[in-house]
């Protein structure tokens, strides 16, 4: 029950989904995880625990490449977990990096560190006996994975902007505070993974509620004009407003989200919209009550319509805003002017206003691993060994070596080049392309994404060059399923997996990520995708207006209709 008056007209009627039962019966996310850890007969989690471990930052996965092979071998799937760390703003120290580098090498099936679109890292392929030691290890270096998955507020993003170092520092501190303010209060994580004693108290979840949120919830702190965090993919966004380089408050945007379900037109990707401006003293309260309003009014009957974006479309943004205002006790001020002009990372060296130097490295697909001829993982470890600043994971899955004093610049650059981390041959196209993890680990994957992207980019580069626009690029994103991790629904060209080798192609997003693309090709294979892209790029090259981006061109020329209001336009 909510501690606030709830308008019954705004509550979705019907029988609660099974996930609601599961959360209610979970004893604040404990379930029987502990007894599953002792079960030596399966490498997986059983019953509700399969879902509950997500609230602790893990997904049960298996090596899908060998699933059929193992079934024939009378072996269960190669169950393991993926762990997603909680790293608000994505900043990690060199010491922490060296520790996770070692852990990945020694205790994961894939040996890699995966930088993700949620500005954190993931371990892939951790077997059950290693799970508890993993959490204890992370705890020992000051990292946890609480609430990085499940129906909670997940890792809070923050624009990676090392140039405006002071402003970034302030925004980053807010990302941490918001993350901590919205964390579950249950001690389940500490008890299960860190062996902390059970404390005899009546546990409550005043913010998230005893059955937590209706669905996942994503928050960002963004520093315009850079939209690297992709605000429109997130439920709640704090857009930093500064005066004279000092943060004074935020414009609040709510209801973005990219996930959808194929064949269900009640689901769609949707942009976030503005609630208004708030000053700094209200930030935590506003964050809390956007969450509690979504908690109380989000659809707990149909999980496919449970996210904030549907709540807002169902009850109306004005009602949503006034519910938040009532609970915070403050009215939003009119939105302060802001604009986004870029989204991708700025690669190479930049100097911050604090005089420190920052090197942004392009990490293809965010996969940190020693590849043949490109020992990226070893290279980063070598850098971490001498680096005195910090490392920053970006929402574009790249990495910034931040806070390098001038005298160390040359040495770090030398290491980066030696290990293939700085590679001038990467095209703009490659650096503006992105994919989710997908096969072989993600259980939701319908088609390849990460493993396919490099060769797709090479082919698209070929098309650009063939059509005489080799120096231009198109924001290209591939995601293995319609759940949105690869943020293809904010790309100029977005591929969303349908089946092995088959994708839906969406066109018409823009460079800065403020427009949802529209379906162009339905369930097609690569040959068709490339043939159509070849033709469109050819037209773009010859017909475009000065400086016109590909995504803008396809809309102006009527290749696809613009999606203005997702609810009505996306499936139209």
């Amino acid at each position, binding site marked *: 029950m909510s501690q606030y008056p709830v308008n019954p007209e705004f509550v979705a009627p019907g029988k609660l989904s099974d996930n609601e039962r599961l959360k209610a019966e979970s004893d604040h996310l404990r379930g029987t995880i502990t007894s599953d850890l002792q079960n030596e007969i399966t490498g997986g989690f059983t019953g509700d625990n399969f879902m509950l471990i997500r609230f602790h930052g893990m997904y049960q996965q298996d090596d899908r490449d060998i699933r059929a092979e193992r079934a024939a*071998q009378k*072996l269960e799937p190669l169950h393991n977990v993926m762990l997603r760390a909680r790293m608000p703003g994505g900043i990690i120290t060199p010491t922490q990096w060296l520790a996770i580098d070692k852990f990945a090498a020694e205790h994961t099936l894939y040996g890699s560190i995966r930088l993700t679109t949620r500005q954190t890292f993931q371990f892939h392929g951790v077997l059950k006996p290693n799970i508890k030691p993993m959490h204890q290890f992370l705890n020992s270096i000051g990292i946890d994975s609480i609430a990085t998955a499940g129906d909670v507020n997940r890792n809070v993003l923050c624009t990676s902007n090392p140039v405006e170092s002071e402003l970034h520092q302030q925004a980053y501190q807010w990302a941490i505070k918001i993350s901590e303010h919205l964390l579950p209060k249950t001690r389940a994580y500490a008890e299960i993974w860190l062996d902390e004693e059970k404390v005899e108290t009546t546990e409550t979840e005043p913010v998230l509620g005893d059955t937590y949120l209706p669905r996942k919830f994503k928050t960002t702190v963004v520093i315009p004009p850079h939209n690297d965090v992709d605000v429109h993919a997130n439920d709640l966004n704090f857009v930093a407003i500064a005066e004279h380089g000092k943060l004074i408050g935020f414009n609040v945007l709510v209801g973005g989200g990219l996930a959808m379900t194929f064949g269900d037109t009640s689901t769609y990707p949707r942009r976030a919209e503005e609630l208004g401006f708030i000053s700094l003293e209200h930030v935590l309260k506003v964050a809390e009550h956007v969450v509690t309003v979504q908690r109380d009014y989000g659809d707990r009957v149909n999980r496919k319509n449970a996210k904030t974006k549907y709540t807002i479309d169902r009850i109306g943004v004005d009602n949503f805003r006034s519910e938040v205002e009532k609970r915070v006790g403050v009215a939003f001020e009119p939105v302060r002017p802001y604009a986004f002009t870029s989204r991708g990372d700025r690669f190479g060296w930049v100097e911050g206003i604090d005089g420190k130097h920052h090197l942004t490295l392009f990490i293809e697909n965010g996969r940190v691993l020693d590849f043949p001829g490109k020992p990226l993982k070893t290279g980063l470890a070598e850098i971490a060994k001498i680096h005195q600043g910090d490392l920053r994971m970006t929402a574009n899955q790249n990495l910034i070596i931040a806070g390098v004093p001038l005298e160390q610049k040359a040495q770090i650059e030398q290491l980066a080049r030696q290990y293939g981390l700085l590679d001038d041959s990467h095209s703009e196209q490659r650096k503006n392309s992105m994919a989710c993890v997908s096969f072989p680990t993600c259980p939701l994957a319908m088609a390849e994404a990460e493993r396919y992207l490099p060769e797709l980019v090479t082919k698209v580069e070929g098309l650009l060059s063939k059509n005489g626009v080799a120096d231009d690029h198109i924001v290209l994103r591939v995601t293995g399923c319609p759940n949105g991790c690869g943020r293809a629904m904010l790309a100029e060209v977005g591929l969303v997996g349908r089946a092995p080798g088959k994708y839906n192609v969406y066109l018409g997003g823009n460079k800065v990520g403020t427009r949802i693309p529209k379906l162009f090709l339905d369930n097609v294979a690569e040959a068709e995708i490339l043939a159509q892209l070849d033709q469109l790029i050819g037209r773009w090259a010859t017909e475009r207006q000065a400086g016109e981006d590909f995504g803008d061109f396809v809309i102006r020329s009527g290749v696809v209709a613009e999606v203005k209001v997702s609810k009505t336009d996306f499936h139209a």
Partner: protein
Amino acid sequence: MLLSSLVAQASPLSEQQVKQLQGLVSQLNPIQQAWVSGYLAASAQLAGQSVAVAPSAVAAPAATLTVLYGSQTGNAKHVAQDLGKAASGKGFTVKVQDLAEYKAANLKNERFLVIVTSTYGEGEPPENAISFYNFLFSKKAPQLPELRYAVLGLGDTSYEFFCKTAQDFDQRLAELGGKAIIARADLDVDYGTAAANWQQQLITTLEPEFAQAPAATADVISWPGVSQTAAAESSYSKQQPFSAELYTNQKITGRDSSKDVRHIEISLAGSGLRYQPGDALGVYFSNDPQLVKELLLLTGIAANTPVLLGTERLTISDALTEQLELTQSYPAFVDKYAKASGSEVLQALVADKTALRSYLSERQIIDIVREHPALISAQQLVDALRKQQPRLYSIASSQAEVEDEVHLTVGVVRYEAYGKPHLGGASGFLAERLAEGGSIKVFVETNNNFRLPENDDTPVIMIGPGTGIAPFRAFLQERDVRAASGKNWLFFGNPHFTQDFLYQVELQNYLKQGLLTRLDVAFSRDTAEKVYVQHKLLKHGAEVWQWLEQGAHLYICGDGARMAKDVHQALLTIVQQQGGKDEKAAQQYLDQLRIAKRYQKDVY
């Protein structure tokens, strides 16, 4: 025959008895005569039986040849049975019995005793001979001044304690006053001809003794330990194996496993072969043609050179591929090959038994020839090699579940040595050379010393790490189909959980459905400290003890050299700790379990 023509000389009756009988019969009408004849026939039959059990004071006891066998793989059993058949064919009264079934108290009454036995592990008696062996070497063993005995040992010269148990029996029976009928023979793996010769010699020696006895009751032969149904329904045997179709050859270890274990399914359709859970399947195989080719190349022999194998004429290539042992090496080969090749190094090696054993431990025949190639004749090569012995695999299925199929769990012997890959003979044939749909010669080897309890309510504890799980898959299938209510507890172990959990999904399902009451696993290489099944047993010692006290039967299958010993030691500890017994009492407790057939092993 008419009574009038009945004379004492032609009958076992005295002259007076003949007269009395003639007097009586003359007073009877034909119906009365018929009744009397039936009465006499019936009472004679009864009398005959009682004679066999307890000889009457009047009639001299019929000389009985008791043939006992101690058998691990069934070879000694077959030799004993052959001997029984041959002797009864000569009119001897013969009793053939499993040593496990034999009542040691009868030993003092035996006059003619033959023991055929193999030796196990490091000179220990085979599982079914342990009780008798212990009795014979105990203070309870009677003096046997009347006993005439013969011992036949079966073994493998590549083992250090070749035929040790046979030697022990021989020596001990002599100590107790027994006299050898003929000298003991210690036979190597290719015992066939030698065993037949020894049997012939034995029968010839005994014939005068048994010829003096009254008419032999040849059909008194009883063969406990032989499944009568299997014998009755199928004409296929070790001598005449069934040519079966390979249905399935499925690797059941993960791609990163250091082990290659295959789940093999073979069709027995049309064979009439029946087996019970606990039995083994004998498998004949063809050698690797590449191996044959290389061997011929190294010895400079043409593939089509004719050779004589016993009385059979065939090409050397066929002899090597189909009939001779090419993978397992053994001292006799080194000896013969050393002579044929003239290799001084090998000849010196033959003289040093310890060095020879270590030399042979991981060398196949081909390795020896590779190291000492020599141009020898085809016949020399054939004569140096012994005949292929079928390999026995514990059956991993129950016919109650799989009907006309038989399943095996085969660990493929595969290793690198001396810079070359090596593959086991039978396992290599099954795993790599025999295509699905191909045919393989098989027979059923019964093993009555590894049987589920007859009572379905009895709990069972099964300890089967590695491929030792095979018979327990059969047990579980059987108990599942029979809807047996007894509890089932399985201990399994292997190196790695993710790669080596044999039949994991099946076992998970059995656990879910409740057929498996408990499943405890030990994956030795997943943890810093190696954990084996015996550690799991000890960990759950209190429950193990509880189950035993509830009458549970205990089974061990798998590696005998280490695992079975370690498990036995763990059991001893459990009985001591949980049962509050000292070491000796604990040993007795386990002995009693074994005698009661509640503690059975199928180890190799």
